[in-house]
């Protein structure tokens, strides 16, 4: 179902991921999170921005296990665990945060 962000209509796939990664603007995360009744905090944005940087560098969305380890290294051990990440993204940090970040579904997400 397409979503409307800043007056533009953006295509998504059947699972709600952006069809075109280049369409992403921060408003995408705002609109998607509102639909999930989730209020984005700085802590959410840390993860979303981290995922976008990861994709920029490696051209893939990391599996949640890889994300957890990498977050722990970059943002501190207290954040590099699944309890913290699921607290932020109850639908799964891989899937939900990647969707907000405009990335495809994580590679290695089983």
């Amino acid at each position, binding site marked *: 179902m397409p979503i409307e962000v800043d007056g533009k209509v953006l295509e998504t796939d059947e699972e709600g991921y952006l069809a075109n990664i280049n369409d992403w603007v921060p408003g995408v995360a705002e609109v998607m999170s509102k639909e999930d009744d989730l209020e984005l905090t700085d802590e959410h944005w840390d993860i979303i921005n981290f995922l976008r940087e990861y994709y920029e560098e490696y*051209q*893939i969305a*990391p599996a949640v296990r*890889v994300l957890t380890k990498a977050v722990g290294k970059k943002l501190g051990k207290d954040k590099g665990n699944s309890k913290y990440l699921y607290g932020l993204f109850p639908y799964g940090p891989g899937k939900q945060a990647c969707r907000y970040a405009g990335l495809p579904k994580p590679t290695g997400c089983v």
Partner: protein
Amino acid sequence: MATKKFMYVNRRAPYGTIYAWEALEVVLIGAAFEQDVSMAFVDDGVFQLMKGQDTAGIDMKNFSPTYSALGDYEVTKIYVEKESLEERGLTLDDLQHLVWEDEDEDWAEKDSIRLVSRAELAEVFAGQDVMFNF
């Protein structure tokens, strides 16, 4: 479940067919199952690891940066066949520098690529439980 040794053998050039990208995706997905994973690059497969790939002219995604993520997925044994490189006029310096970080040693960076001869690689193959050819 006992850990098995999985070897993914890459023999084809990176673009023109989907094999190289599919192999990489299978490796990344398979890495979630915590097996003992190795990759080998032989024949034209060595081109997959080349530095400085640019796919702008062929309208395919340049997935070569993804090889650098293999370390994050705990794929740390990447065998490159020496003869295949030489036959193509290449050396290790033409390939990306792939590393993994050892969490137990304060994230020390270690080389993932192991340059091996054809004979050495045959021995490595002989020691595997499961082989995938791409």
